[in-house]
């Protein structure tokens, strides 16, 4: 809903103008939030009130503002955002506005323009046609017009629904002492709802998904169409393939839970064979990989990004070793995502959290409470932490979604 700030000044309490203005807003189908009210102390002091007025659309808001003006409620004059061109590629003006992951608007040409892709720690670039979007520092180009300072930028604070249910209050709530079955059922219900609304589900996975024996459950979720995007690293993909080709995860038998003879090199051999074939997709095509999460992703054409890190063995040919390029590849797959599952992953979860708008429902499942807290501390306040074994979580989630 479009919003404007209006100010009302005068003997607005005694003249009942304040009450009238609120009534006029509601009668017109609009809504308001009282930003502040200052009541005059003496008979002659004027009172002031500032209201955020909203209406269903721009036209309704314009006619409502016109109606309010009659009663002395005037739009608070807001200046346009200050724009400054980048002097060079990949370098922002010194005073650039640094974004949050919250819904943001920029004042351009005396209009509030929605920022198209909320992402934290970016710059705001305004195109020649007046559209505004976030751009990470390394992607700006010389001459891009970047918002500097805070004038003409407003951020919509996250709504704080009232309620005791942690799902109604998604504010870095960590659930180490809550009944897990209920939480999983609620996550499943939310995924169904998001899917019904056309939203996409992103899974971010760590190697523990495979170590705990949960990969078949995740593979089932992929196979049955519940996962739309996968972000992970070399470790997860390697162990997923290793477990399907050799039955071990990092050399440990998935079935028996004991180290196998020479198993410490199993993952290297698997990586080597995939490298021989050129890509995971090629390894699936020629029958080297016959099951697992990566197999299902290839078969179902679920896009995935494997971001590399310093300690990676191999790596697999699909791993993007340039971290900036990896983040860009992830960024390109974020639009449309409405639910994110962070599954036993610390680094990729935080990296993904950095890219997601605050409106994405994010569930961080980890046995370690510190991971959940860390994600929230990095600014992904919307994340709901579920402290539990990822294997148990995925088994129950798959059972709930793929009966």
């Amino acid at each position: 809903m479009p919003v404007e700030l209006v100010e009302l000044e005068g003997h607005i309490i005694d003249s009942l103008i304040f009450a009238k203005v609120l009534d006029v807003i509601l009668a017109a189908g609009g809504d308001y939030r009282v930003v502040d009210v200052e009541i005059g102390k003496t008979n002659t002091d004027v009172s002031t009130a500032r209201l955020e007025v909203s209406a269903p659309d721009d036209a309704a808001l314009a006619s409502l503002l016109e109606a309010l003006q009659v009663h002395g409620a005037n739009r608070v004059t807001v200046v346009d955002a200050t724009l400054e061109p980048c002097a060079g590629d990949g370098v922002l003006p010194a005073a650039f506005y640094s974004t949050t992951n919250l819904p943001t608007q920029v004042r351009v040409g005396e209009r509030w323009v929605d920022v198209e892709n909320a992402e934290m720690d970016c710059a705001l670039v305004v195109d020649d046609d007046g559209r505004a979007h976030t751009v990470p520092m390394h992607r700006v180009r010389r001459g891009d017009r970047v918002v500097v300072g805070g004038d003409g930028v407003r951020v919509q604070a996250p709504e704080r629904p009232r309620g005791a249910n942690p799902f109604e209050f998604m504010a870095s709530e960590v659930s180490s002492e809550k009944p897990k079955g209920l939480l999983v059922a609620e996550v499943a219900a939310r995924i169904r709802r998001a899917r019904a609304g056309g939203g996409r589900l992103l899974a971010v996975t760590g190697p523990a998904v495979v170590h705990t024996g949960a990969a078949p459950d995740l593979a089932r979720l992929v196979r049955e169409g519940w996962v739309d995007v996968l972000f992970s690293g070399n470790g997860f993909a390697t162990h997923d393939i290793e477990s399907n080709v050799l039955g071990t995860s990092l050399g440990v038998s998935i079935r028996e839970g004991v180290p196998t003879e020479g198993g410490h090199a199993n993952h290297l051999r698997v990586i080597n064979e995939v490298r021989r074939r050129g890509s995971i997709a090629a390894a699936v095509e020629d029958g080297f990989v016959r099951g697992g999460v990566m197999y299902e992703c290839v078969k179902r054409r679920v896009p995935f990004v494997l971001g590399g890190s310093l300690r990676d063995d191999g790596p697999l040919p699909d791993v993007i070793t340039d971290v900036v390029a990896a983040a860009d590849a992830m960024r390109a797959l974020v639009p449309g995502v409405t639910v994110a599952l962070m599954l036993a992953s610390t680094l990729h979860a935080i990296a993904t959290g950095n890219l997601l708008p605050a409106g994405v429902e994010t569930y961080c499942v980890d046995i370690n409470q510190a991971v959940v807290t860390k994600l929230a501390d990095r600014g992904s306040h919307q994340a709901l932490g579920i402290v539990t074994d990822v294997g148990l979580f995925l088994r129950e989630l798959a059972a709930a979604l793929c009966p």
Partner: protein
Amino acid sequence: MRLDWGRRYLMCPPEHFGVLYEINPWMHREVPVDLDRARDEWERLRATVESAGAHVEVLDPRPGLPDLVFTANAGLVEGDRFVPSRFRHPQRQPEVAHDAAWFSSHGFVITPLPEDVHHEGAGDALPFGGVLLSGYRFRSDAASHTVLSKLLGLPVRSLELVDPRLYHLDLTFCPLDDRRAIVAPSGWDAYGRQVVEALVPEPLVLDDDEALSFCANSVVVGTTVIMPVCPARVGRLLEGWGFEVVESPVDEFLKAGGGCRCLTLALDVRLA
């Protein structure tokens, strides 16, 4: 207690009066004004005001300014300060310089309103109960009330006018003394009615027909209430309160939407 103002008035003779344009529902250019009758009515009103005990000052008429006769709209007097009106309609805007010149030459301090608000002086602002009651919508802006309040250091109560036939506050409200006033609630919205209800302990409430006879547009000098024509019920109530009603017909001026009060501007108002 009687009003502590209303003993000194400014009036402007109707030498150049006429309905030359239409800026309220009463004005019709095709209805001719009888200037001789207008002069007689004006002289009679002046004599009535003076015989009630008030002093009348005269503003020189000007050709091309037909509504200059309605001195109530010249501006707002507060002690020795004069706030010239900012007229809504361009037809009346040239009156301002002439009005301000008179007040300036008669010892008033001119306190102008900013250019971005409209306010039509005593036509839309009357003192009662220690506050300035001011109308808005047709001629004055609600925003002008805040400016006036700050400019003069006065509490202002805003009233939204809703009947275009009663386009100025002084067609709907007439202070009689410190507790009583003639009121025409049909001219206000529901909030305005509540504001007046809280402000006026003993209102004389007019019905629609009474309001449209312009009897709220009266000049009050002590216990004398001067109005164009007095509905019988209103007359009885006023007499019951100890007022004497004097009818002073102003039919020619009603053709332009103005009554007795509109033809006078009290020069002795002091609120602050």
